[in-house]
């Protein structure tokens, strides 16, 4: 289990760095873990983590679904691409802070505003990635599907999705991390709970172990999801790729 080894190495590196730098500059893993356990015992960790995870899940699903559809469309249709491009570039380069502030001003400090703002932030990166995927589709397989009169659903599932899979995987992985980072900002600016809220508090108090404990809790969740769900699935789905000799 190379992966476990690498994980152990990571912890060891952290430990060493903390020892060298001194706990004021970087608290050791044990200190962070102790804080995390304390927060978990008090229930605060789960409360905030739960709130954040719910927001992440919603915003992620929303933006991936709409973003993928839009990106696919822009990759396939020249007109859609021309029309959508200026909007895309604008959305892509609008700072998260601005979108979130505007959303809160427009829709109030509500859950809906937060999730919409986060989704809008993530949307364009999904569009950009899936657009490239759609451009790289193999037209010869399209023709095959057309000749054999594949219905839409079958084309999507058996012809398009497998070709788009690497793009979707890339968009999803970097997208999830982006959503999570933006959720933090949204929580910092206008939610009364969630990891971002706690990180804001920890930052104001400049309590680095607390800051790290909350920050890493999400990474831990993703690590577990990756190891137990995503990677086994990916391995199954890419069985058809012949390994390099």
């Amino acid at each position: 289990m190379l992966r476990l080894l690498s994980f152990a190495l990571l912890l060891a590196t952290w430990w060493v760095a903390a020892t060298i730098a001194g706990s004021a500059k970087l608290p050791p893993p044990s200190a962070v873990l102790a804080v995390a356990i304390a927060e978990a015992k008090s229930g605060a960790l789960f409360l905030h983590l739960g709130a954040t995870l719910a927001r992440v899940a919603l915003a992620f699903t929303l933006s991936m679904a709409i973003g993928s559809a839009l990106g696919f469309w822009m990759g396939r249709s020249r007109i859609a691409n021309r029309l959508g491009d200026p909007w895309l570039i604008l959305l892509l380069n609008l700072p998260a802070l601005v979108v979130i502030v505007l959303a809160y001003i427009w829709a109030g400090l509500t859950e809906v505003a937060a999730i919409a703002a986060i989704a809008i932030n993530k949307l364009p990166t999904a569009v950009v990635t899936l657009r490239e995927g759609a451009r790289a589709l193999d037209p010869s397989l399209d023709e095959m599907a057309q000749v054999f009169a594949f219905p839409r659903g079958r084309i999507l599932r058996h012809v398009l999705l497998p070709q788009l899979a690497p793009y979707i995987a890339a968009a999803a992985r970097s997208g999830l991390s982006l959503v999570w980072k933006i959720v933090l900002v949204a929580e910092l600016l206008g939610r009364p709970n969630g990891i971002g809220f706690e990180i804001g508090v920890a930052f104001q108090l400049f309590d680095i172990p607390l800051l790290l404990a909350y920050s890493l809790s999400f990474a831990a969740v993703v690590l577990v999801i990756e190891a137990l769900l995503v990677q086994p699935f990916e391995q199954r789905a890419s069985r058809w790729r012949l390994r390099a000799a």
Partner: protein
Amino acid sequence: ALLPLSTSRAAETVKVAVQKTGTFAWELAVVRAHQLDKQADIAIDAVELASPEAGKIALRAGNADIMVSDWLWVSRERALGARLTFSPYSSALGAVMVPASSPLKTLADLKGRKLAVAGGPLDKSWLLLQAALKRDGVELKSQATITYGAPPLLAAKLADGEMDAGLNYWNFCAALEAKGFRRLAGIEDILPAFGAKGRTAMIGYVFDEDWAAKHRDLVARFLSVTAKAKEILATSDAEWQTIAPLTGAPDEATLRAYRDRYREGIPRRSAAEEEADARILYGVLASIGGRDLVGPAAELSPGTYYRADARD
């Protein structure tokens, strides 16, 4: 026996935005603990937020009726057309802190030093400091190495010796003080030089004028409730033990520093006196901060201070 009566009549609600780590949150804790709100028959609905700027969003978005900010901003907003108004909350101001062993003795010694400035180039304390030194012929902005940044980060930077001195918000200064750092000067100490009569409350409750006009009574009760809470915090040391967890103070010394500075900052003067001083300071700030800071108005916008007795 009175209890059923007071609950049967629905208490009027006031929505306030509070930063979780701020002093407003401490006061609200006291209000709740002593049921001051119930006694005044109001319900304080607090929106807890994690960053200092979030309150402005809450106010603009309509999620809060009252938040805490400074009169400078209120005046600027008024000049730009927003009908906001201000009621003094605290006169605690930042201070220039140096390590205990620092050779710096006076503000003028900052020349040529590395100075950390929290809150950016338009921070009130920073502008006042510059204005004060200008009178002594020191152009601090160009004659010292200035580093702007987030207040907690700069406090940490000063603490670990990367900076020679730091101008920070009062709560960070209090924490530094507890760690043995020295106050080179508090900003309130330099105010008299500009002609101010006393400690001037820079920050206060900010709310919409029209809303306040419709809820005069509610505003009055809210102000009296928070005044009572302030009084409790001003007199009772035991109370500080209760709210200690909220302050995030890591030790007794820090808590004590917080307590003392907080108590000093409780505004004691009338609104008229405050406003008179604010006008003077406004002139000072406008002259050094320029249009970027104050917007189109050259003077403190009329109506910036909330008058409980005024009728429209």
